[in-house]
């Protein structure tokens, strides 16, 4: 399908315009809030979209992978003895990098294990079978966390000083929020580069388009799918770290609704499309913040899903359509 070059710029242009208008409506602080919430949704949505793109599975356990990620972060930080703000900058950097790496690797590993045991045996089963195992896995993850950490919400250490602010154009903006947004962008760019530039990325894309053909061309399907799960779950793990840094709390039920909204983000942007998932995540963040600002916090969920319905009815492939895994 060919596109006129002008079309490619149309969507970003409209979004930029909308963002500017919204900025003037909600103000800088709320704008940053929206970006921060959106960044978390976007990070989770990336995993959804990648997994869907490659094996067409709505991985409902993915939200719980995010939840487990936040508990891993909590466990890691508190067992290392950090229980508050770290003011020593070099130490802070080391702790942050270490936490992100550890949480991402651990969650990536868990993702691979889940894929291996719960989804791979069902790869040729009816399409809904893995969906049900995904729900089962989600329950299992929740319960395991509940057994180990208890059912109450957890107060987790926030190593970055949450009260620190920088002045941006006359408005004080929280440093943590900026950090969260920056991390999300860095990870997204890294992912995009990986998928478009590396051999494994190409293998992933070709598997998404036609698994059988990719296999004939010498792509190792099992490894490719495992890597997809690793990356997707690692990103959810990163989102878990972000959750702890930003809100300093977590609980074993966090995953389900977050997952639902992240999945909505992925669909909103065009499922299977990495940029779309990121865009969708930020959009949901903006919708939520705007409905709160407008005094409809009670309805925010209905508004999020209402907009989703409208977008899909008028643009059934999501805002950016499908790139990763085009199917008739």
């Amino acid at each position, binding site marked *: 399908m060919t596109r006129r070059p002008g079309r490619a710029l149309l969507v970003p242009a409209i979004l930029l315009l909308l963002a500017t208008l919204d900025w003037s409506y909600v103000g800088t*602080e*709320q704008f940053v*809030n*929206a970006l*921060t*919430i959106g960044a978390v949704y976007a990070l989770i949505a990336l995993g959804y979209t990648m997994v869907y793109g490659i094996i067409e599975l709505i991985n409902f356990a993915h939200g719980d992978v995010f939840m487990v990620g936040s508990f891993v972060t909590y466990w890691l930080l508190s067992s290392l003895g950090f229980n*508050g703000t770290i003011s020593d900058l070099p130490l802070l950097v080391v702790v942050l990098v270490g936490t992100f790496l550890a949480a991402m690797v651990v969650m990536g590993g868990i993702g691979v294990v889940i894929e*291996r*045991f*719960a989804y791979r*045996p069902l790869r040729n089963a009816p399409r809904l079978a893995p969906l049900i195992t995904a729900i089962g896995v989600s*329950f*299992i993850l*929740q319960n*395991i966390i*509940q*057994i180990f950490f*208890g*059912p*109450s*919400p*957890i*107060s987790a250490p926030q190593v970055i000083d*949450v*009260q620190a602010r920088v002045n941006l154009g006359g408005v004080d903006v*929280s440093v943590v929020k900026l950090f969260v947004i920056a991390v999300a962008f860095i990870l997204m760019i890294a992912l995009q580069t990986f998928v478009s530039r590396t051999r494994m990325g190409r293998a992933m894309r070709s598997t998404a388009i036609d698994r059988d053909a990719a296999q004939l061309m010498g792509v190792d399907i099992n490894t490719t799918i495992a890597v997809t799960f690793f990356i997707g779950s690692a990103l959810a793990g990163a989102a878990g770290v972000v*959750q702890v840094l930003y*809100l*300093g*709390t*977590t*609980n*074993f*039920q*966090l995953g389900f*609704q977050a997952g*639902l909204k992240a999945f909505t983000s992925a669909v909103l942007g065009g499922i299977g499309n990495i940029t779309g998932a990121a865009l969708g995540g930020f959009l949901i963040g903006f919708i*939520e*913040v705007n409905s*709160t*600002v407008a*005094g409809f*916090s*009670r309805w*925010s*969920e209905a508004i999020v899903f209402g907009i989703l319905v409208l977008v899909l009815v008028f643009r059934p492939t999501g805002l950016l359509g499908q790139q990763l895994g085009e199917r008739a």
Partner: protein
Amino acid sequence: MKLARVGAALAIASIVVGACSGSATTAPSAGGGASAAPASAAPSAVGGASAAPASAAAGAVDVKIGIELPLSGADLPNGQPTLNGVKLALAQIPVPGFNVTLNVQDDAVNGVHDPQQGAKNIQTLVNDASVMGVVGPFNSNVAKAEIPIGNAAGLVQCSPANTNISLTKPEFGAGDLRKTNPDKIAYVRVATTDDIQGAAGADIAYTIVKARKAFVIDDTETYGKALSDQFVATFTKLGGTVIGGSSHGVPKSGQGDFTSLLSLAKKDSPDFVFFGGVTATGGGLLRKQMVTAGMGAIPMGGGDGLSDGAASVKGSFLNLAGDQGDPNTYMTVAATHDIPNPTKLAADYKAMFGAEPGAYSASGYACAQVILEALKNVGADRAKVRAYVTDPSHTYDTVLGKFQFDKNGDTTQRIISDYTFDPGTKDWKFVSQKDFGAG
């Protein structure tokens, strides 16, 4: 495929290992078919016939107290400590001539309290002829499904936690719930109703904090919404202003993130923030994020849903809210005022279960006391137990203090106590109490 099965087996094994760490009891005998004996509660009378104390001699009559609480999933922190309170009462209070065990029913389905399951459970308890009274339920909507059944069967229920006004007061539709036997109520509760608590919250905000401009948030659930609505009504009546004119609902699904709502609130510079809800629906996080958002100096208040222990208790409001905030700013209203001997209950509880008591452990204990008291006085007759418990002339001397039930089954103890955060002990500190009278 094979590997997957091994994985499942391992997961099951992990439960078994996790669960057997403290198991030193022998398997209970068949006598306690429906008794749920905790592995760690061996000394209690609940443990089954073989381990039963001497009081349960040959001539003792077997009777049961029904438990109808949410005991799995997210509601476990509500149900389990309450159940433990009942267990503690059974272990401590001798009932000569009776061998009292429990019939435990869990109303959580897929981890969330479910009215349909609750109705089924109460039916099961009704059908168990040895059940003399029921402690529970925990949630108001479960109660609405259960009260008609208990009323029809004449099985008395004592709720440790329900606060919704429509459960008991005829002017709010409670009469419809007990249509079968309008004169024989079978539902009592030891918690004060939302209207009193919400009003008391407004009273604190207006008279003690001297706030004039409040921002109100609720969790859109039955308890939280009722509390907030009452707060808004009373606070406005007293002469204060509520920003936006009503409460802002934050559904539980949005749990954990109040930042954008707080940014909104900050613009109108409120001098009080009221939260209608419980810790699990975001109470502690709200306070924590107020501090983050630079609103730590603004006092915040809530109902007894926030009264769940000191900052050292994991998952409590104070624990989540963090202790780096401005001192003397957290306030709450508890339905139960300073109970007669709180330290003893806490110590006994800790000795038996190895944990701090929960918010409703004492209430569960009190409910058990009420039912046992009736049992001692009228014997193992369900109808008489019901009649005794609901008789407004009887006074109960419980761990919650002395109280009666009025003709609707509400406690006459309408004392509201005000607490504030004490940065020294990192716990709630009693401020004052106010008696809202007999209705």
